Every structure is written in structure tokens, then in C-alpha cells.
């Protein structure tokens, strides 16, 4: 690790050590602000959250800070809650379907944009717009587009003799509605990452395959897809971690409703803690911690995977 060559003479050892100690002090001097910051603004809120989930909080005891310790009772409450199973299923469906569609569409677009044509770079940049817009902007735009009576989507469906669909107000469509909006938001991210992955595949491979008479379809499945596997894995894992956290889009469009039909762990946790007049912070924190654990498990998989990639 250190590049300063250790000297052989005994007299130089203490000086070298002092020097290295000084280096360490300087290094940690530069790291001190961020370390304190991480401890105070990451570790402590997370610790408070665990503490919240282990006590029986009411609004009164929340302010006074004398809530009794109740162990895992909040977790029991949450697991036994009739919302638990729907929230679990919706989180899984929302996350799975989001990343599947975002990845597929993103990859198809990346392959398309890798071809040479005019305006390619400009149009690719314009694809980033949905990802950069504030989520409240995207979510409210989609809300209006999916409006049952005056939305453009139902108008378009009407032209081909379908609908109208109560996108946001019927239990069977609300999850689909938030999924559509979330997929739209996530496509640019997938496109950019996969596009940069595609650029690492040498052109000569495709030229050789074309000479051997491989069709475009074969070239994709025999060259592009296998060589892109590490980038794909990273994209999907990041998509997974990112989608587990999605809260804004769902809350703004449906508030998890109607009757829990689009509730995920993230919106459920928010509703318990902040969405009602009588907040139940304990169960809210318990749901939140289940979400943290899930996100961190996939996060560890991601970090391990990336380390392995860097090592190879």
C-alpha cells in the first residue's frame, strides 16, 4: 500500500515511522468532517429508527421521549397486519416488473443508438430528460394523463375502441398505473449505463461475425448479450435497490390506494408515520427497517459483485 520504501538503516526507522504517523494524522484530518457527518447524519438517524421500532410510541411519548421498551412487539404488529401481505406482494411485483421493463427497453434502445446515424448523440441526450425531472413533476403529469375522464391516455384508448380505464381510482389498475410511470422514469438510466457498456465491446468482433454470415439477431445473442453480462448485472442490481426505495411516485399518484391496492413497504411506512393524523411511529419504523435490511442485502450482493469485477 505505502509507496515510501522502508529504509534498512536502524537510525531512519523512527523518523520514517513518525513521518508515516504524521501522514495518517493529515489523512484523517481531511476525513474528519465527513466521518463526523456520517456518524451524526447517517448512523444516528438509523439508530434512532431502530430505537423507534423497539418502543411503544404515542404522540405524547414521542415528544417527551419516555416511550416504554416493547422489544419486537412492533414487528409482530406489522407482520400480523392485514396490509403486510399485499404490501409485500406489491413491492415484489412493482420492483420486479419495473426493472424487467426498464432493462429490456433500455437495452433495446442502447443497441439501437449504438448504430451510426445523424442526431444520435443529441436524441440520446434528450432521452435523459424524464430521469432528470423532479419526481413530483413526472408523477403529477402522469396523474393528469391517466385521469379517468379527461386524461389523454383514455382518449387515445377510446380512438381504438377501448376503455375508459379507471387508471388511478380502481384497485385492479392502480399498481399498473404507478408501474407505467416508474418504468418511464427509469428507462433513461438503463439506457445510459447499458450504452456505455456497449461501447466497451470492440467493433472487430461484430465485423468478424458479419463476415461469417451471422445475422443481426445472432450477433446480439452470441456477442452483445454475453459480453454485456457484467454491466447488465450491475444495472439490474442498482435498479433493484433504487426501485425498492421508490416512494414519491406512488404516493403522489395514488397514495398507495385505493384500499392498499398500490401500497408498497415504502408508502406503507410513510403512511404509518406521516400519512395520518394519529401517527404510529413504532410500526412505521419497523416497516422501514424491514425495507433497509432488504435493500442492504441486495446492496451487499452488488458491492461483492463489483469487487469481483474489479479484481478480475
Amino acid at each position: 500500500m505505502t509507496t515510501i520504501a522502508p529504509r534498512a538503516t536502524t537510525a531512519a526507522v523512527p523518523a520514517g515511522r513518525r513521518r508515516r504517523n504524521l501522514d495518517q494524522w493529515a489523512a484523517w484530518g481531511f476525513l474528519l468532517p465527513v466521518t463526523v457527518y456520517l456518524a451524526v447524519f447517517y448512523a444516528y438517524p438509523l439508530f434512532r429508527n431502530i430505537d423507534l421500532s423497539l418502543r411503544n410510541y404515542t404522540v405524547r411519548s414521542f415528544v417527551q421521549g419516555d416511550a416504554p421498551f416493547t422489544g419486537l412487539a412492533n414487528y409482530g404488529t406489522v407482520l400480523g397486519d392485514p396490509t403486510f401481505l399485499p404490501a409485500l406482494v406489491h413491492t415484489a411485483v412493482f420492483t420486479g416488473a419495473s426493472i424487467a421493463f426498464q432493462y429490456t427497453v433500455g437495452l433495446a434502445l442502447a443497441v439501437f443508438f449504438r448504430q451510426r446515424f445523424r442526431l444520435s448523440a443529441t436524441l440520446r441526450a434528450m432521452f435523459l430528460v424524464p430521469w432528470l425531472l423532479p419526481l413530483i413533476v413526472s408523477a403529477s403529469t402522469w396523474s393528469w394523463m391517466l385521469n379517468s375522464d379527461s386524461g389523454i391516455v383514455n382518449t387515445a384508448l377510446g380512438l381504438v375502441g377501448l376503455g375508459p380505464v379507471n387508471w388511478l381510482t380502481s384497485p385492479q389498475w392502480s399498481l399498473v398505473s404507478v408501474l407505467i410511470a416508474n418504468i418511464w422514469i427509469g428507462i433513461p438510466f438503463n439506457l445510459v449505463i447499458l450504452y456505455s457498456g456497449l461501447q466497451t465491446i470492440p467493433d472487430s468482433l461484430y465485423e468478424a461475425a458479419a463476415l461469417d454470415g451471422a445475422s443481426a439477431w445472432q450477433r446480439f445473442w452470441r456477442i452483445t448479450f454475453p459480453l454485456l453480462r457484467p454491466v447488465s448485472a450491475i444495472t439490474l442490481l442498482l435498479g433493484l435497490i433504487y426501485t425498492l426505495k421508490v416512494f414519491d411516485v406512488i404516493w403522489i399518484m395514488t397514495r398507495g390506494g385505493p384500499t392498499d391496492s398500490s401500497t408498497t413497504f415504502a408508502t406503507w411506512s410513510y403512511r404509518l408515520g406521516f400519512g395520518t393524523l394519529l401517527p404510529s411511529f413504532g410500526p412505521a419504523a419497523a416497516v422501514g427497517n424491514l425495507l433497509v435490511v432488504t435493500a442492504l442485502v441486495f446492496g451487499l450482493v452488488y458491492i461483492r459483485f463489483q469487487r469481483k469485477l474489479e479484481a478480475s
Partner: protein
Amino acid sequence: MTLALLARRWRTGVALLLTAIMLFPVYWMLTVSFTPEQDMRKSPPDLFPVHGTLDGYRAALTEQLPYLGTSVVIALGTVVLTVALSAPAGYALAKLRPRGAGVLNFVLLAAQMVPGIIMAMGFYAIYLDLGLLQSIPGLIVADSTIAVPFGVLIFAALMSTIPDELLQAARTDGASRLRTFWSIVLPMSRNGVVTVSVFAFLWAWSDFVFASTLDNGGAHEPITLGIYHYIGNNNQQWNAIMATAVVASIPATLLLIVAQRYVAAGVTAGAVKD
């Protein structure tokens, strides 16, 4: 040759069509923002704002201007705090070989995986004790947690490309580490400063989770809450809602045009958007 040219033209055509489909919601937001109120529920709706009006923008600017001002202050504050915290840390990780760097790197990666809503709950409990709820500094600190880990990792990656010989030369000339950082490392990391600032600004500007939990009902609310209250209160005035949405999208659009290179670099280099 002509066949190849034709294929290229054809691809440009397809690409334009795909972009149009992808950006249709953005176009629709613009159209609705110019639509007069009486045409809002017309069926079928006009695909162009034929009787375009600025009523929506007039309403948006008279009612939402304070929210926009608050958002600018919060976003700029977040940028300053994020760069001030993450640039020195990036320098140390890249060049000073601190013991425990591996652990810190790991913590920074893991920190980005914690959902915002969980952080918000913890912050709420702490701010309640400290009396920082509904305050701008409180929101700036909370918003910076989205960007600081990203910032440190970007700075570390960028600063590690600065040649060691250069820093060694500065030391031989008697420059202290602080001086080296300030006069050599930081100016050479201008790209990193821009990238980190762009993302810190955008994330703070777009933040809804922290705003709605820590600042709801406060005297100074950011624009995301402005739009949120708008939707909740008068869901008839969609031209004003969409006009506000358009105005709230201006920073993102501007940054995409002005700093496109940095935006693309940030997405791929870190690949760490929360």
C-alpha cells in the same frame, strides 16, 4: 453506398419517433400548462394549445414564487455543504492512504442504499428534539445526505488520476497538505466539482421525501411541496399545476443543456443514483 445512406436516414427517422414517444409526457405537460381552464375537460382534448393562454403561468408565478425562492436557497446550500464535505474526503481517500479507507469506502457505498423514507423518520425524531423541524438549515443537511456519499466517491475517483509526482513536487517546495489541496488538487478537479454540484443541486431541488416529512407546514416550503399542495387543494386548475411543474423543470433542463457532459459522466461513473 446509397443503400447505406438510406439506412442511416431511416434510423434517424426511427430515433426521432422513439424520442417523440418518450418525451410525449413532457410535451403534454407543456400543452396543458397553456390550455385555458374551460378547455381542460374538453373531449377529445386539443393536441396543441390552440387557444393558448398564459393564465396558468400567471397563477403559478403569483402563488408559487416564494416556494421557488426557497428551493433555490436549499439547493444552493446543499451544493456548498456537499462539496465542502466531500472534496477533502475524496482527496484523502485518493492520495493520503488513510488506514481504514476500505471500511470508509464500504460505508459510503452502503449509505447510498438506505431508503430516503427511513432516513426521514430518523431525522424527524432528531429534529423534533433539536427544534430543527420546518427550518431551512435542517432541510439542507437532510438533503445533503443524498449527495455526500456520491460526492466523496466521485472526487476520490477523479483525484486519484492526478499524478503523484506533481503533489510530491509541491511538498518539496514546502507546500503544506492543506495548501496542496487548495491550490493544486481542487483546481485540477474542476470537473468533479461541477459534476457533484450538478447532482447535489438536482437532488435537493427534486427532493420530496425530506421536504414532506421535515418541512411540511413550515413558513418556507420548497417547490416540490408547493406543487403537492396545489394538487391537493385545487385539482381543477391543472394549467396552473402544470405551469408550476414546467417552471420546476427548468433547472434540470438547463443543466442538461449546459452541463450535459457532466451529467452523463455522473450517471455512468458512479452509477449510484439513489
